[in-house]
C-alpha cells in the first residue's frame, strides 16, 4: 500500500536517490533540505515515515527527531536516521532523541526498501 514518506537531507543527490527508490516501490515521497524545512512541511502534512540525515545545517536530524516527538501527530511515526557513522555512541544519541532505527550510508536500494518495509508493514 502506498505510504507517505519524507526524506530529509541537505544533499539533493541523496534525496533524489531515496525518493526514486521509494517512489519505485509505490510510495509518495516528499523532500526537505534540513530539519527546519522538514518541520515546516510536516506540521502541515503528516507522513507515515520520516527518513532523515543526521548531520545537516540549520537543524540536524537529532533535533528534528526530538521536535517531531514533541508533536502529538508524530509521537508514533517511525523515524529512521540516515547516517554515515555507525559508531555506537552516535547511535545511542539517536535512540535517545527518539528515533526508531538507523541505516548507514552508503546503502543499497534493497537495504533501504528492507528497513522501510520493516517499519511500515503493508
Amino acid at each position: 500500500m502506498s505510504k507517505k514518506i519524507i526524506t530529509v537531507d541537505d544533499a539533493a543527490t541523496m534525496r533524489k536517490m531515496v525518493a526514486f527508490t521509494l517512489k519505485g516501490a509505490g510510495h509518495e515521497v516528499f523532500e526537505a533540505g534540513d530539519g527546519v524545512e522538514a518541520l515546516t512541511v510536516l506540521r502541515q502534512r503528516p507522513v507515515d515515515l520520516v527518513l532523515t540525515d543526521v548531520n545537516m545545517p540549520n537543524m540536524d536530524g537529532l533535533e528534528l527527531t526530538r521536535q517531531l516527538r514533541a508533536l502529538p501527530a508524530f509521537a508514533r511515526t517511525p523515524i529512521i536516521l540516515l547516517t554515515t557513522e555507525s559508531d555506537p555512541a552516535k547511535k545511542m544519541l539517536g535512540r535517545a532523541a527518539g528515533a526508531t532505527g538507523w541505516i548507514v550510508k552508503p546503502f543499497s536500494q534493497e537495504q533501504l526498501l528492507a528497513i522501510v518495509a520493516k517499519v511500515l508493514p503493508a
Partner: protein
Amino acid sequence: MAINETLQQELVKDLLLESHEGLDRFDRELLALEQGQTGPDSMNNIFRVIHTLKGTAGCLGLGHIEHTAHVGEDLLSLLRDGKLHSTPEMITTLLALSDALRGMLRTLEATGTDGTSDHSALLAKLVQLQVAPAIAAAPAPVEKPVFGLFDDDEPVVAVLAVAPEVAGAVVMTAPASVQASSDAPTPTTLHAAPPVSASASVEVAGKSSVADNAIRVDISQLDKVMNLVGELVLARNQIVANTTQFDQAALMTAAQRLNIITTELQESVMKTRMQPIGNVWGKFPRIVRDVSHELNKKVRLVMAGQTTELDRTIIEAIKDPLTHIVRNSIDHGIESPAKRLSVGKAEEGLLSLRAYHEGGQVNIEIMDDGGGINLDRVKAKAVAQHLITAEQSARLTEREALNLIFLPGLSTADKITNVSGRGVGMDVVKTNIEKIGGSIDLQSQPGQGTTLKIKIPLTLAIIPALIVTSGGDRYAIPQVSLLELVRLEGTQARKGIEQLYGAAVYRLRGHLLPLAYLNQQFKVKAGVPKNAAQAMDDVINIIVLQADGRPFGLVVDEINDTEEIVVKPLGKQLKGISSFAGATIMGDGRVALILDVVGLAQHANVVTETRDRPVIDTKARAQSDADQRQTLLLFSVGKDRRMAIPLALAARLEEFPVSRVERTGATEVVQYRGQILPLIRVADHVAGRVTPDEPSDILQVVVYAEQGRSYGLVVSQINDIVNESVTIKRASASQGILGSAVVQDRVTDLLDVPGLVRAAEAHASLAA
C-alpha cells in the same frame, strides 16, 4: 546496483554540481578557520561537506571518491570534536584533499567513473595527522550491520527510559532477518590502495564542467518569468484576433501591452542569468593563500560587494583576468614581509577587492598596498624588449609609462616565478576585458600601492546598438564603442575627407580622424543611393568609434536607428572573423551581423598596434589645462630637431617623390592640384644647427596657405599630432622660430611659419 542508467547519470550530475559548490565552501571555511574567523558551526560545516560527499558517492558506487573522502572525514571528525587542533600543515593537507576530490569529480564528469588516480601520499598524510592522543584511529570493524532498529539492539538501560513509548510503539517481528546481508558492500575497507601504476587520472582541461554550466535560479524569479510568458500569450492572442478584424483601437492597446510585457520579460529573463560576483571571488582566498605561501609573503584579502550581480557570461569572461590580476598583485605588488617592515609598513600586505554598481556598469577595484609600479623599470624593460624606442621612452608621461604594462609581451618579472611572468600578461587581461565592452584603468603610487579599476557592462546578452547599412546590408554596432555621428553634406562631403599618406582622414575638431569605409573593408559594393540628393559624393556618414582607446571613423552608406538587440553567437565556421562579434535577428526576421569594433579597426588598420605609436591618453590630457590647449603638428627637421606648428596652419600633409621637384630660378617647386607649389626646405631657413638626415626619395611636405598662395614646407618626418597646453620657455628672436617649449617631454621649436616664408622668399629673390 538497480538504479537505471539515466537516473544514475542524472544523480552523478547533481552530485557534481553539489560537490563543486561544497568543496568551494570547504576551502573558504578552512581558510576562514586558519584566519581565526570561525563561527560556532564552521568546523561542522567543513566536516559536513566531506561527510555528505562520502555518503552520496558511496550510494552511487563511486568507491574511489568515497574512500578518499572517508579518510579525510576521520581527520575532520577529530577536529570537529575538539580532539585535535588545526595546524597550517593540516589546513594545507585538507586543501590538497579538496583538490584531489575535485580532480576525481572532473574525471567522473569526463569518463563517467571516478578513476583510479593515486592519492596514497595524501591519504597517508591525512592518516598521519590523526595523532589524537586519546583515541587511536578507529579500527575498522570487520563487519558492521548496515541498518537496524533500536529495538534490535542490546537494550541500553539508561537510554531506554527516555522514549519508552516510542520504542514500544514499533512492534518488530523479524529482528534477525534484517541484519546486514553479508553481501552488502562493506564501506570503504574493500577499496584497497589502487595500483600505483594506474595513477594517471583523466582530467579534461578547458572543457566547462557541469558546475560551470549550471546556474541556480530563484523559484520566485522563474514564477515571474512564467507569468509574463502567460501574459505574452494573451497579448499575442489579442493581436491575432484583432488583426483579422482590424480593430485599430484594440490593436493599439494590445501592442502597448505587448511592449510592456516584452520589456518586463526581457528584464526577468536577464535576471535569471545574473549571478553575484562572489561566485568568482569565492576562489580567491584559496588562491591568495597558495600564492602568498609559495612566495613567502603575508597577505590579507579583504573583499567588499560580493553580492554585486553580473550576467553569467560576463562572470565567465572576467574570471581569468581577475585571477591573473590577483596573482600579479601578490607577485609583483606586495613586498616580502622583511621589505615591508623595513619601509615601515605592516608585515602583512593588504589586497582588497571591491565591486559596486555605477551607472549601468559594474566597477571592480583591485587594490594592493605594495611597492607600486616602478616606472623606470617598466620603461627599461619595454626598451630592452624593443617594444618602444629609448626616444619614445624618454618622453612618456607617467601615465603613459604606466600603460606600458598593457603592451603585449611585456613582463616586468626579473625572474620567472611560478606565479606570474609566464607569458600571459596584462595585455591579455586588457584584451579580454575590452572584448566584453569593458575598460581597465591603472593607478600606482610608488611605495604606496597599485589600484586597478575595471568597468564592465552588466550584461552582454542584450545590448543597445546602432543599426547601419552598408552595401545594402544592415549591421549592428554596439553602442558602448560609439562616440559620435558626423554627417557631411555637399561641399563638406566632397572636400572634408583628406588623404594622409594614402589613408583617408577627416579633421574632427582639429584632430585627424582615420577613416575606414565599411564597404571597402568588407569588399562589398556601396549601396545604391536612394535619390539624387543622396548621391555618394553629397552625403558622407561617419560613425566615430572608439577602439583600444583611440577614435576612428567608420564610413557607412546609411545610419538607421538605435535598437536593443539580442546578441547571438556565430557558428564555428565564422569564429575566425574578428570583425564580427555575433549576430542578431532584426524586427523583420532577417539576420544582421554585429560588428566587433576592435576587430574591425585592426582589420582596417585604423588603430595601429600600441607599440607603433606613442601612448597617448587623450582623456588624461583633457583634464589638464583644457582652456590653454593647442593642437600641434609635430615633425622633425634634420636628424634631431623637433618642431611644431599649430595644426590649423597645416592645410594638408603631402608626400612628393623627389623626381617631381622642378626648379624655377633658385626655388624648388612641384606641380600640385594644377598649381605651382613653391617648396621651402625648413632646415635651410631656420636659425640653429640642423644635422642633415639621409636623403630620401620622398619629400614630406606640410602645405601652408597664406593670402591665397600655398607653400610647401619640406620637413624630415611627420611625428604626431598632440593636443597640449604649451608654454613657451625661451622667447627667441631667431629666424623662423617663435620660441621653444616642452612638448611630450622634449624640447620642441615652435616654427614661425609666416616669418619662415618671408625669409625663404627674400632668400629666393636675392639668389635670383
